[in-house]
Structures are given as structure tokens and as C-alpha cells.
């Protein structure tokens, strides 16, 4: 299966002009009667506009409730097609769909729904505000959905943690011919190495010291190379072990260009041991060792930028990623896997911590996204041949307060602290831009 296209709606950009409905009606029924359009915009400017349109669902209820087999999802295009010859006009589909994506056209007495205009929807073309976009969805699911999940079911992460998502996707992609290292931290804390004689994975996995993940993995990889066996040496590590106590061995392995894929899941502290400060903890953040009291108010130093330090090792590949941008992550994961066959590949994934950062457990993706949208976190990649470049540049960033206010760990910040963080965001952006510019020149 390939990736599917679908129509995305950005309510914030919609002004309710109705051009999309007019265009749809003209294209589909040859009349400008927007009541017959298969896309319907409801609501108003005050309360926000809403969309009624077929989502071309992956598990479509309209299809499952249809008693006549008149609706079916086309495997190639992903479009849910309506077969007029089979339809018995019972309208059950209109009840089954939660999105009002299929509705009665009173002019014909039959149902009508979006057919994606053979890949070039008239509504999208007609929208003058960019509120409608044709986007590719489910690419990851369609590509890797059937691949084997190499972690055991039921990893014991905190509620709302998306590190499990990251771990499962990564190992699914890397595949079974892997030796996995998960040093002390949240990843083994979730049970990746198992407890009491059980294992958490279907690949060989070990629990290195906090300090020796990279060299231990290098030893494994080197011997398989010596005896002519191809394996991927993968580490899924935390930011504390990598940036602090294990940094020397990480740096040494990178300098020797060991053939390893080293992934750091950066939750900006020693979250597994009780949310203590690491050198990746940002300025001002509350942690259990940078508490907020009368005298001090969170961490007093800026975070170490570990991925940039790895760039200065001239690794085969270095990239930052975010769980809110999984397609970007997957592109980088593919490149990192390929690079790890030649030398040291480093992936730094920003992964918000619901427990340690103090935000509601349903907000993880939102917090991760806000970090990128404010440029607090930048998504870029580096290779020796291609230099450094942004993969998702944010030209019009939100103020950093939009990110900070999403979390309890920054609740105490003074105006001075906030302006320090905002100025650091600007400074960091300028620094990375300079590197990107230099790489381009």
C-alpha cells in the first residue's frame, strides 16, 4: 500500500467564504448550489468554522454499516467509493459516519460523498486562504503497519509518555537483525530489557552501564563485522547518560566512527530516577535538584546542545527529531540506519515528559509540537556531504511563552527568566542558521 492523500482543514485560516462549496458543486453536479457540495463548512467566525467532509477513514464506519456492499475503500487510492448500482438508499451510512462525510443529496434522493476529484480536489484549488490542503497521510502506517513490533506488549511507561511510540517505531524499522542497548533510564525502566528473567524485546537486548553504552555496542558490532555478519548496533539512550556521565565514551565512539546508531531520547533530565537535572535541562526549569524556593527558581544554566556537539565530531549523520513530527523522524531514521553501516550515526529526539515536566497526560504531542513551533527546539540534519540544514524550518515562530505555559515546570518563571529563554531561542536559532548557511556556502 502506498501513502494516501486526504484533505486537511485549518479552521484558523478559514473565513467562511464558501468558495470551496461552490467549486465542489460546480464540479460534481454542474451547478453552483452549495447545498449540493460534498464539502460543507459550518459554524461562524465567532465560534470557529467546522468541516463536514469525508475523511476517507482507514477503518470506515460507513463501509461497515452498509448492508448492500455499495461502499468500499480503494486500496490503491485510499478513497472510499460509492457504487450507485448497489446502493439501496437506506442512508445507514449517513448515521454511521461521525464526520457528516456522506449525506443525502435531496436533488437526487441518493447519498453523495467526496471522491477526491481523482487526486486534484476542486475545493482545495478554490480555497483562497490556504485553509484546505491536500496532504499525504498514513504513510507511516501504510508502510510499517504490518511490520513486526519487536517490543513486548505492555511496556510500563508513564501514562501519556510517547517514548514507547518512539521505541516501537524505531525497532520496527531497524528490524530483527539488531543488537539493542538500552542504558539505565526510562527506556529500560519501561521494561525493554525485561524484569525477573523475562525479556522486553524480540531482539538481543542488554542493559549497559549508564556510562558505556557506545563502546560496549561498538565491541558487539566490531566482532560481527570481523566474522562477516551484518547486524545493526542500536542504542536507545537518555539525555542524562549521554550528555553527562557517559559523554566521554560517546565522544570516543563517535571519534572512532564506530558503526553504531545512537539515539538519544531527550526528556531533559534524569526522569526515571525522579526528575533530576541533567546538562540537557533547559534554563529556568524546575527539577527535583533544581527546585523552586525562596532563594533559587529552577536551573540557573542553559542546556548543553548535545546534537551540535555531535556535529562537531563530523559523524556520518546527525539529526534532531520530535515525536510530533513522525514523518520527519522516519526520514531521519532511514538515513541514520544507512549511515550506521558506514560509521557513527546520531539521532537526538526531543521527547516531552508528562510526569517530570508537569503537563496533562493527553498533551504530549501538543507540547512537542509547541517546542518546534516556537523554535525552542529546531529540527535539522547534518551529514558530511550535505552539511547542516533545517528539515522543518519555522519562519514565523510563536513566542516562547506559548511553549512555556504548557508546562508546570516553568510555572514559576519571572519575566526576566522568560526573556532570558526567549533571547536564548533567538541566539540558538541564529547559531544553527549560521551553521546551515556555512554548510550551504
Amino acid at each position, binding site marked *: 500500500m502506498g501513502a494516501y492523500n486526504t484533505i486537511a482543514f485549518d479552521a484558523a485560516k478559514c473565513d467562511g467564504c464558501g468558495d470551496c462549496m461552490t467549486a465542489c458543486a460546480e464540479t460534481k453536479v454542474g451547478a453552483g448550489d452549495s447545498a449540493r457540495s460534498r464539502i460543507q463548512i459550518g459554524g461562524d467566525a465567532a465560534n470557529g468554522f467546522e468541516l463536514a467532509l469525508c475523511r476517507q477513514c482507514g477503518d470506515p464506519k460507513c463501509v461497515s454499516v452498509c448492508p448492500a456492499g455499495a461502499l468500499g475503500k480503494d486500496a490503491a487510492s485510499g478513497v472510499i467509493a460509492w457504487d450507485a448500482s448497489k446502493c439501496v438508499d437506506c442512508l445507514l451510512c449517513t448515521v454511521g459516519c461521525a464526520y457528516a462525510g456522506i449525506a443525502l443529496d435531496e436533488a437526487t434522493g441518493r447519498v453523495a460523498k467526496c471522491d477526491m476529484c481523482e487526486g486534484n480536489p476542486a475545493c482545495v484549488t478554490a480555497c483562497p486562504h490556504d485553509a484546505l490542503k491536500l496532504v499525504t497521510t498514513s504513510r507511516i502506517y501504510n508502510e510499517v503497519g504490518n511490520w513486526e513490533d519487536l517490543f513486548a506488549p505492555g511496556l510500563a511507561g508513564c501514562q501519556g509518555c510517547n517514548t514507547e511510540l518512539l521505541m516501537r517505531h524505531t525497532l520496527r524499522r531497524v528490524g530483527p537483525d539488531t543488537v539493542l542497548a538500552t542504558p539505565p533510564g526510562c527506556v529500560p525502566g519501561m521494561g525493554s530489557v525485561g524484569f525477573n528473567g523475562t525479556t522486553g524485546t524480540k531482539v*538481543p537486548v*542488554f542493559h549497559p552501564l549508564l556510562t558505556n553504552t557506545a563502546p*560496549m555496542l561498538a565491541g558487539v558490532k*566490531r566482532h*560481527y563485522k570481523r*566474522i562477516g555478519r551484518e547486524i545493526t548496533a542500536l542504542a536507545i539512550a537518555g539525555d542524562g547518560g549521554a550528555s553527562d556521565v557517559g559523554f*566521554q565514551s560517546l565522544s*570516543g*565512539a563517535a571519534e572512532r566512527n564506530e558503526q553504531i546508531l545512537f539515539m538519544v531520547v531527550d526528556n531533559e533530565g534524569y526522569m526515571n530516577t525522579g526528575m533530576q537535572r541533567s546538562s540537557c535541562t533547559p534554563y529556568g526549569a524546575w527539577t527535583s535538584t533544581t527546585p523552586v524556593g525562596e532563594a533559587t527558581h529552577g536551573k540557573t544554566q542553559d542546556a548543553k546542545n548535545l546534537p551540535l556537539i555531535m556535529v562537531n565530531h563530523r559523524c556520518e549523520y546527525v539529526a534532531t527529531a520530535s515525536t510530533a513530527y513522525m514523518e520527519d523522524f522516519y526520514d531521519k531514521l532511514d538515513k541514520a540506519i544507512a549511515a550506521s553501516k558506514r560509521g557513527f550515526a546520531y539521532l537526538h529526539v526531543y521527547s516531552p515528559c508528562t510526569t517530570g515536566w508537569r503537563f496533562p497526560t493527553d498533551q504530549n504531542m501538543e507540547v512537542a509540537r509547541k517546542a518546534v513551533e516556537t523554535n525552542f527546539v529546531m529540527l535539522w540534519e547534518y551529514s558530511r556531504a550535505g552539511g547542516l540544514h533545517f528539515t522543518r524550518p519555522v519562519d514565523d515562530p510563536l513566542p516562547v511563552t506559548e511553549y512555556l505555559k504548557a508546562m508546570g515546570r516553568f510555572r514559576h518563571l519571572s519575566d526576566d527568566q522568560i526573556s532570558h529563554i526567549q533571547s536564548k531561542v533567538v541566539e540558538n536559532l541564529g547559531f544553527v542558521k549560521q551553521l546551515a548557511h556555512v554548510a550551504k556556502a
Partner: protein
Amino acid sequence: MTTATLEKQTPAKQKVMLVEGNEAAALGVALARPDMVAVYPITPQSSLVEHVAKLIADGRMDADIVDAEGEHSVLSVLQGGSLAGARTYTATCGPGLAFMFEPYFRTSGMRLPIVMSIVTRDGITPQSVWGGHQDAMTVREVGWVQVYCETVQEVLDTTIMAFKIAEHHDVMLPVNVCLDGNYLSYGTSRVELPDQAEVDAFMGDKNVNWHVALDPLRPMAVDPLTGGSSGRGPSTFVRYRKGQCRGMQNSLRVIEEVHEEWANRFGRRYAPLVEDYRMEDADYAIMTLGSMSGAGKDAIDEARDAGKKVGLIKIKTFSPFPVEALMKSLRNVKALGVVDRSVGFRWNCGPMYQETLGVLYRLGRHVPSQSFIGGLAGADITTTHFHRVIDETEALLSTPASTEPVWLNEKD
């Protein structure tokens, strides 16, 4: 280095060479054919790993060499290699061993048969780059097998034997071959180089990760968290620890077997655990460890010539401590002087003396004894020092022992 060759020779024609102890160790390593060595320099070990590196660079040794960024990573690389099935080797000492301690502790727990020379060095501070047993003694309680060599030839031979001991399926433990910094590391001596084909036959098949492996063909979780105060309780942990202790005890037998096989194949016989030197009819004895034993034996010869009924007991295998063998050596001894090249801070005596007190207790009779501490920071323990040891031990037959150690080089 320039004249050494490791080509096939007839057993009858073992090549004779003049080498320092560090080179002898390197030649022994090459003959044992490890797949992987990891190196980091530190005095007085440095020339050992330089010799290894040169052997590989010259194509006379086929091993993957990892120039790691520190001892901590040196041992970590080897742990990974061993888990993937590699025969592995390194060498270190002193501060390097201290820096390595975190993975060092873990090596024995994972039952990885890694061989590591300790070119022994005194502990800092006071600052010192000289020999002494303080480094190896400090880590004696970590589950590594530790053997001490007396001569350069013994360094070469024991280095090869160490792999066979470590990889024995009843042992599966890492082994330290301890050679005295300065005296053995740089001491140059005639050695006979065993024939490669004979060593290959001696070593037999290699299988270092049958018990624990990181291999996609037989996936397993290596070292998952065991139960403790919660979960299933500590039984898994206790079973592992008990197994380690069993492996240590098994090694006493295996060390003897391997030394016997070595003697039969190569004609050089070493006391594997404890050596008795002129102990027949001895009323009292002195105990030694490592390269000091040569001067000790000379002094014993002179004392015997003077009519004294004294003998020498040399420990080769220090960890596990050869309790039964030592009890045998001590069975008729009426007074004992123990010479250590390091200190035991807690008991105000030498560590070997402290260990020996336990053996004396098991004898079930009172044996007056005295701790002598000498050779610190590379100091020489001469026959003159040993005559003092002999005299003061003899005095224990008639006068009570002091609880203070005798510091042999205090006025040197």
C-alpha cells in the same frame, strides 16, 4: 620486537629470545589468538600495548585493535566483543584500573572470560608511577581470578594459560595476570617462545559466549533487572552470586589442570596455586608474592646454608585465595612472616597477611605471625631485606609478635 617471529616451529625448537616482561606478555597474547584487544596507555603498562599494536600492525597477530579513549571504554568494548563471541584481551594498572572499576566489577558478574594483565603499580596518592601491588589488591574482592607471576617466562606462559582458565566452562570468569611494574614489566630476560601450532592445540576450540550472548540468531536479554526487595524477590540475584563463587572455587581445580597440561606439553612447570620452596622440615616460613620471590629464595638458600630451618611459600593464585593448598604448606610451620607489596589500610598490615590470618585460624593451632610491608612505590626488596624478614620471623618462635607491621624500606 625486531627479532620475534610467531611462525610455525617444531616443538623441539622453541625460539629463544631476550625480551622485557611487557613484550613477553604481548607475545603470549599473540599466541593465544584473541579476536579483539582494546588499549589505552598507562605507565608501566604502556610498552605492553605498544608491543601488541606493533604485532598487529606487522601482520603477525590477527586481532581487531581498539584504541579507546580511556580504560573505562577499553573494558566496555571488550564486554561487547565477548558477548558477541570474541576472545578478548587488554592490560592496565593503577589509576587506569581505578577508572575501569565500574565495568570491571560487572565483567565477573556477566561471567565474561576476558583476560587482562595488570602491570601492577602502587596506588596514588602520594603520587607515584612505580610498581607495587596496591592496584590489584584493591580490586581483589570483585570476582576476577588473579594470578601473580614471578619471572618473565612465567608472564609469557601464564598469559596464554589465562585464556584457557577463563574460558573453561566450569569457570567462565575474567582473569588478571599480574606482573610487577618495573621488575617484570621492564626486566629483560631470556624466554622460550612456544610454538604456535602447539599453543593452538593446547587452547582447543573457542566458545566464549555459549552462556550469555548478544546474537540475533539466539536473542536474549542480557542482565535484566533482578528481583530484590520487591517483585519475585532476590532469588535470581542470589543464584547468580552463588554461581560466581562456585566458578571461583572451580577455578582452583582448573588452574591446576591447565598448569599440568602446560607442563606436559611445553616442559615448563609452575606451582599453580602455592609453591613450597625448601619447606621440607622447615620450622618457620616466609610468604611472598610476585617478582620479589626470587630474592626471597636466594635469601632462604643463604639461611639454609647457615643452618636455619626456614622455607618460603610463594602464592601464585591470589584470587580465589588458595586456602586448602596453603593449609597444606603451613601444616608444620611454627612461625610465619608474610611479605606484602601493598598495604591493607583497615587492618594495619599487608593484604596477603590479612588473608593468611584466616588460613592460620583454620589450621586450628596458634602460629605466631608477622606482617612485613616492602617494595612500595617500586622499592627493591633485596636479600638483605629478606634476611631481616627471616630473622624477625625466627624470633617469633620465642618472643611475642608485634601487632604493627614491619616497614622494610622505611629507611631506604
